[in-house]
């Protein structure tokens, strides 16, 4: 089955999540859909599988225009999507879940269902017992069940969202063999959304890469990790223009000693790091490789399993965030309206939260402060406007306005995410001015040029492992790309 996407658009509020995307997929091929978080790949796949309506554009199946709403309708058109968290009913058994998605009357055809389930499982080597409750299955098995269910519903195009997250190596092998078999023997079209480049390299016949809501290109495989990363992150690396700072003799602002951090999917073990006053450390890596955990551990938002966090010479391991805040440590999260700004509060109310520290709030004084800071930080918005009405760039500048003026340390998650070039440059001017005053900055980024342009050092994270590039100005895209893809062996550096 051939699918053509034509000029697909999708907005979420001010975000243009899919911007004029045109792509075609042919039966018998496995296509990797690549892009960083927020690139728009999940949105595109949800549109294709009926989970979300599009704002504009057209889907053509085998040349004919197809308009459908809802996942069930998409399945009737032959398109099924396997979600990251399989959509099954935990209280029921494998067989019951298998039968419930089927077309047909009110009666459950258990015997037929069982035969069909076993037949499909045998073909692909899936290890599913019909009478096992879902609650006892591993993620990998639930995924197998979901695939089996979609196949028996006549799906001819299978979309998989991060299918190898949380499954065993053996299950991965079985899954990949099944997908190859479905493409080769049944002529199915397989679309794989993944962060894991090694999976894409192992499995895909071609890739389509999205960045910032746009399609940046397609290419046939094979390709190297470096080539794929270059497509995902953009090619150009401008020369580093900032003034080199002499860090000799600068005091240590942050020291991490043998830190072990445990997240849902990643464990960072035995990390030691010293950051001096005025130093900028960039954290590179695919999303969820451990860099967010490190940033949060530095400000007390994530309690380390073991090890020590020392800020300005004082051991603060396990202390609450407010203690870190009192030592003038600033944190900026990637999701501005989720963590940082309070939707429903006005700009003045935000400023008052950080300036009006007495028991009584003097609203006219707070308003003056607000106007002053809005001017100083170039925020386009009125003091009485609610914060959610600001554009992303203005929200980010407001966040800067809310941070202490001379922090000891700033830990920033993707400080320029979603910003246009000018806004991003402005943010960095502010950050560099602070670093000139001795503020140490740790930041994560999905932009390779941002990392190399502003960092003194870069730490590359891959599945919780860390590789250090001691001189960021000498890093090449190719090298960074390989490191981000997990090829630490044989890389130059420390």
């Amino acid at each position: 089955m051939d699918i053509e996407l034509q000029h697909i658009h999708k907005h979420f509020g001010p975000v243009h999540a899919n911007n004029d995307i045109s792509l075609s997929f042919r039966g018998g091929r496995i296509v990797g859909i690549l892009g960083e978080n927020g690139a728009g790949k999940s949105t595109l796949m949800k549109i294709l599988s009926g989970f979300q309506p599009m704002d504009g554009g057209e889907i053509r199946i085998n040349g004919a225009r197809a308009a459908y709403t809802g996942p069930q309708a998409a399945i009737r058109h032959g398109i099924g999507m396997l979600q990251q968290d399989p959509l099954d009913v935990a209280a029921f058994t494998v067989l019951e879940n298998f039968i419930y998605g089927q077309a047909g009357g009110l009666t459950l055809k258990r015997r037929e269902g069982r035969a069909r389930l076993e037949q499909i499982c045998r073909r692909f080597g899936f290890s599913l017992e019909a009478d096992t409750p879902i609650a006892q299955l591993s993620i990998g098995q639930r995924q197998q069940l979901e695939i089996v269910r979609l196949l028996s519903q006549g799906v001819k195009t299978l979309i998989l969202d991060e299918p190898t997250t949380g499954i065993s190596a053996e299950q991965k092998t079985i899954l990949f063999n099944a997908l190859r078999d479905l493409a080769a023997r049944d002529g199915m079209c397989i679309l794989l959304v993944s962060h894991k480049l090694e999976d894409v390299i192992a499995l895909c016949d071609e890739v389509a890469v999205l960045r910032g809501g746009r399609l940046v290109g397609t290419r046939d495989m094979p390709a190297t990790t470096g080539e794929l990363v270059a497509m995902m992150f953009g090619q150009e690396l401008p020369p580093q223009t900032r003034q080199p700072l002499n860090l000799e003799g600068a005091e240590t602002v942050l020291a991490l000693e043998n830190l072990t951090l445990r997240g849902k999917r990643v464990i960072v073990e035995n990390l030691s790091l010293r950051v001096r006053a005025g130093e900028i450390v960039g954290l590179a890596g695919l999303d969820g490789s451990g860099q967010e955990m490190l940033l949060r551990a530095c400000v007390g938002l994530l309690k380390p399993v073991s090890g020590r966090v020392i800020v300005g010479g004082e051991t603060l391991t396990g202390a609450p965030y407010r203690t870190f805040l009192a030592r003038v440590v600033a944190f900026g999260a990637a999701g501005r309206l989720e963590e940082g700004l309070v939707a429903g509060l006005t700009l003045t109310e935000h400023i008052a939260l950080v300036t009006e520290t007495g028991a009584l709030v003097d609203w006219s004084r707070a308003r003056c402060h607000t106007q002053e800071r809005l001017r100083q930080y170039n925020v386009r918005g009125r003091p009485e406007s609610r914060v959610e009405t600001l554009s992303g760039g203005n929200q980010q500048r407001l966040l800067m306005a809310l941070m202490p003026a001379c922090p000891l340390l700033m830990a920033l998650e993707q400080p320029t995410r979603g910003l246009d070039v000018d806004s991003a440059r402005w943010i960095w001017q502010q950050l560099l001015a602070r670093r000139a005053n001795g503020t140490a900055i740790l930041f994560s980024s999905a932009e390779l040029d941002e990392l190399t342009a502003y960092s003194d050092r870069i730490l590359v994270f891959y599945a919780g492992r860390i590789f250090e590039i001691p001189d960021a100005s000498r890093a090449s895209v190719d090298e960074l790309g390989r490191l981000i893809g997990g090829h630490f062996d044989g890389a130059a550096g420390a």
Partner: protein
Amino acid sequence: MKTRSLPLQIGLIVVPVALALLLTALLILAVGADPLAVFQTVWEGATRDSRSFGQVVNFWMPLTLVGVGLIVTFTAGLWNIGVEGQMVMGAVFATWAALSLDLPQPLLVAVEILLALLGGGLWAALVGVLKTRLGVHEIFGGVALNALANVLLIYLISGPWQPPEGGSVRGTPPFPDAAIPTFLSDTFKVSLVAILIVLAAAVAVVLALRGTRWGLELKATGKNARSALLLGVPTRRAAMSAFIVCGALAGVAGLYRVLFTFVSASLRPGVSGGIGFLGVLVVLLVAVRPLGVPLVTFIFALVLGGSARLQIALGLDASLAGVLQGSLVLIVLLFNGLRGRLAAREEITEAAAHE
């Protein structure tokens, strides 16, 4: 966000009220009565003499206290369903003073008020600890503590505090005169001091929400606790303080009920009179805007007070008042929902226009 024009704002209040009246009128017609006669009877029932109007005032005051208290918890994003139990505990604590302390009148009343604040505040603090330390949602904690407070109330009435003439669950013996504030007159059984205290408390809370850092922190916590924390707000403390303030006000409301509801002041079962839950409806109705509270609570008190007369005058059940109230709340909530959808749609079209 655009501020809406004044006529539109008024319309959003008047239209649902009119619709609720219409719906109730249709229901009254359906049971074969004359809606106009019903409305008139309710009005007369509430205002025909000073005794009736005194009852209306004595329902209005505690409901206002509870409403204002719930404004505080709603501002902090908390559903303080436990407000009923907090009223009961305020009443229980104050009753202990009324029955066992031998003090001159102003002093004894002052002690009662302090104990009512303490009782309600403590009971609410329990909900707060369950919520902030042990992760028990405040609705579940509140419901459990409501039940517990009522069990305790029944135990005290039928046990240690039962009247000397013998075991009953009707209530404690009447309070001594020193425990009761002076009424304005024998027929208008309302205490000016009590009213002034209620109004002062309400005004103080509203001003505190607007003009103090505490109020700002509650608002930030209620809208987005995660962001508030990152901006340096002690969110747990904010939640605890909201519960305690609301509980303390509810406790005083409980005391007010004990003193002014029954023919003679005494602690009785059902002392809260459902005012706690009614207060939640009030706050939903005014969309957490404090100035609307005294108005809406007055209307509720009027309707509920007047409807007692329906039985005598028209042979209709007094629960018709409840129907009016219920349909009013339902329709207003419906309108709020519609407004929310409308606003969301406007925002999306605006955002699209900016592209």
